[in-house]
């Protein structure tokens, strides 16, 4: 199998400029590391204590290898740098961003996208946001879009109320790690009734080798407000493992709507172990659109806790696993009020020796009425060496609730390929078209700019996967 096309694709983020860090916590993890980060960031006392407590939780918790892949054991926590920053402060203007970093983001097309269709952008380089800007019209409406560090200092009254409430420190080993050493990420607050028309975007860039990125995002959308948030990520290809372990908490108040879109294209040496969860209050909607193309191992199960009546949760997931990759993704739907509905649609494609896994959880506890869940998982296997797994867990209590789960595994039909070849397409083109058809109904739900990009990425991944 030729992998040339795949290499071209990886080149998108595979470059690095030698940026001398302004601050560097050094290798390894201990209470000293946490104090270093807290000192650099001038954390309030409660944050320092929160971090230290989380560090202990991290040390106490075992690796989840009882159910997860043994590949996790390849992470050596002593060989990672937990904090690196290139400059002292986040700037509001591209002109103030240091040249090398500016070059990085320009090469990734971030400023261009900002001009074209975004309401605001934040760009994180290793541990800290280097640039953050939001359109004046949006900030005039009272929308706050800033880094998590600024968020906790400047808006403690909103920040503290929800921080660590959706995802408690002890949720899992990696949420504890993030809670101990978090840095960067976004804080967003949308006031009641404000509908942010254009998406806000964050771009996460890992630039340094042996580095761990631990951004922390907290988004609160108040009553009746609406927000679309998008994140993208890349890293250069290093020979050693890099760790990305984010925590993302979403809060949708009564009647609010949040759409959170991720296009993950880390280089294939990145361990991407992310905890993402949203709370949906009465009649609110939280929708995760999660697309995983890159990384060595991704473990990510976006969740929605439907806390208020008629709340709605949705996860749309696309994963593509190529040689050396394991996309272990899924969804968690926790119904906690009557008449809540959730929907999970997951499509995965395994190419070459790639492995994709769907892991899901649906929980409908006692005495709820009128809850509904629908889960569909479709897996497409391209080569004989490809692998796919499905591990859902569904708990339903009581009458008056309905769940259905369906999964299927298939390959691209030989007839389809033959038909297209008859009409003059090469086998590769036919395969690519077929795979795009497989995910098309999901890709259509993405904002236009993203769906075009995604189609292109899939085309590139598929080229050379046959013959």
């Amino acid at each position, binding site marked *: 199998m030729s992998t040339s096309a795949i290499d071209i694709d990886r080149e998108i983020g595979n470059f690095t400029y030698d940026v001398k860090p302004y601050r560097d916590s050094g290798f390894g993890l201990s209470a000293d590391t946490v104090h270093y980060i807290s000192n650099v960031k001038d954390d309030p006392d409660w944050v320092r204590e929160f971090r230290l407590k989380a560090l202990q939780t991290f040390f106490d918790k075992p690796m989840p290898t009882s159910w997860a892949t043994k590949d996790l054991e390849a992470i050596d926590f002593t060989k990672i740098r937990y904090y690196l920053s290139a400059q002292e402060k986040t700037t509001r203007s591209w002109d103030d961003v240091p040249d090398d970093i500016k070059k990085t983001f320009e090469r990734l097309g971030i400023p261009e996208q900002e001009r074209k269709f975004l309401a605001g952008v934040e760009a994180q380089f290793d541990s800290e946001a280097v640039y953050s800007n939001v359109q004046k019209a949006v900030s005039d409406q009272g929308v706050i879009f800033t880094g998590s560090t600024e968020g906790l200092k400047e808006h403690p009254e909103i920040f503290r109320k929800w921080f660590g409430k959706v995802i408690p420190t002890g949720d899992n080993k990696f949420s504890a790690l993030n809670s101990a050493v978090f840095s960067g990420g976004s804080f967003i607050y949308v006031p009641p009734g404000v509908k942010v028309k254009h998406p806000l975007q964050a771009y996460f860039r890992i630039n340094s080798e042996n580095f761990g990125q631990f951004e922390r995002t907290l988004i609160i959308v108040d009553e009746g407000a609406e927000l679309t948030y998008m994140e993208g990520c890349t890293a250069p290809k290093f020979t050693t493992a890099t760790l990305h372990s984010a925590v993302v908490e979403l809060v949708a108040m009564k009647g609010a709507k949040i759409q959170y879109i991720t296009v993950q294209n880390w280089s294939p040496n990145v361990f991407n172990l992310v905890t993402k969860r949203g709370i949906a209050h009465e009649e609110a909607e939280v929708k995760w659109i999660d697309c995983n193309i890159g990384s060595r191992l991704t473990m990510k199960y976006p969740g929605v806790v439907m806390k208020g009546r008629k709340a709605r949760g949705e996860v749309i997931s696309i994963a593509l696993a190529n040689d050396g990759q394991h996309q272990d993704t899924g969804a968690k739907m926790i119904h906690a009020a009557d008449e809540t509905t959730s929907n999970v649609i997951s499509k995965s494609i395994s190419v070459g020796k790639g492995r994709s896994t769907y892991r899901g959880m649906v929980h409908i506890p006692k005495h709820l009425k009128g809850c509904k869940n629908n889960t569909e998982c479709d897996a497409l296997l391209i080569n004989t*060496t490809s692998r796919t797994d499905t591990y859902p867990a569904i708990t339903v209590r009581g*009458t*008056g609730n309905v769940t259905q789960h369906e999964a299927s595994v298939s390959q691209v039909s030989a007839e389809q390929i033959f038909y297209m070849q008859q009409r003059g397409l090469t086998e590769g083109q036919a395969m690519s078209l077929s795979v795009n058809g497989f995910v098309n109904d999901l890709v259509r739900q993405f904002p236009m700019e993203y769906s075009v990009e995604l189609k292109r990425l899939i085309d590139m991944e598929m080229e050379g996967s046959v013959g």
Partner: protein
Amino acid sequence: MSLTGIIREALTGTPESSPLETQFIDPTSPEWLQTLRQQAWCEFQSTPAPKRKDEAWRFANLKMLELEHYEPASKMDRDTEQRVLAQSTGLAAVAGRMIFANGILLSKQNISDELAAKGVRFLSFDEAIGTVPELIRQHFMTQTVALGSARLAALHKARVNSGTVIHVPKNVEVTLPLEIFHWLDGANSTVFPHTLIILEDNARATVLEHYQSTESRADGLACAVNDLILGPGAKLTYVSIQNWSETARSFQINSTELARDAHATNMVVNLGSSYARYESASRMRGPGGRSDMLAVNVASAHQEYDQRTLQDHAQPNCTSDLLYKNALSDFSRTIFAGLIKVEEHSHKTDAYQKVRNLILSDDAEANSMPGLEILADDVRCSHGATSGQLEEDEIFYLLSRGIPETAARKLLVAGFLNEAIARLENAPIEEYINDFLARASAGNE
């Protein structure tokens, strides 16, 4: 030393001076069997008990694995024996029947001379050790216990004292079903029923097994193992009906091995026990095999049915089709964890897995974990899990035709379960199961 003491010793790890084997292993049995049992006992002792985090025991109530208070079964009195024999009514026409109570063979209706002349063997475990030791040595508990109960399987191997060995030679068909009863009697009593069925090339047989208690409220422990081995082209229908007392704990480890073009239909009906763990693994050892795995579970009161299944496609061109139906009332709980595993190069696999939960009460809980692990690409695999309740429209339809509500609900539940039962394609057994469930449902009123 009592079983109590021995289990406690196994749990606490404090060795006792008395040699276990003299307590447990019949010194008159052949040496190889004594060795096997000793090894199994050591294995039981050295295997750690499952922990809460073990995926194979996810959602399960691990308290049910605390077995200290159980004791070896004692011999029953004459009256109970007579009662057991009178109540062992199953199918009207059978090819052979055995009735065991507390591990002792009470009665045997042997197979016809004609079948015996063809080489068919229908033996109790003890008879088999005496007459066909090579068969036992070759097949006794040789299958891997993959679904979590390795420790209980070791206990079974060390303690097994009753059961059946069925051997059908090449090209022989046993038309009528073979029927086996196992009874459990006395408080805190234990039984370890074993079933070994070996069908050679193109052989055919149908086996119905009943697990019953003499008293509906006596606590007891049953740890059964069923090993079904199908040669090329063989066809087996195996049905077990678990109706131990409502306070008993049941562990049943079921394995099926299918050679080329073999076809196994394996059904379990669960009605009794406070906790019933059922593990069923089907392994395709040759191309062209087909395994149908069926379950009908009627859970009520505080019953917990914990079921784990494996459809292991180790060879290409095989089909497996699983349908598990759970009807849950009162405070009952069910757990279904199934896995379709398609190994590398097992192309043209057609595997299907479906669990359907009918929740009839606000306090009932259904847990479903349908899983897939696919390592080959030219396959058709799908699974489905649904949970829901009776349709109001359907009840209304029956009410409008003059059927009272209780009867209407019962009809709908029976219809729901019958979808799995009808897949047996064996009218007398289907009829028996339907009657049996109807009686149980009438008795619950």
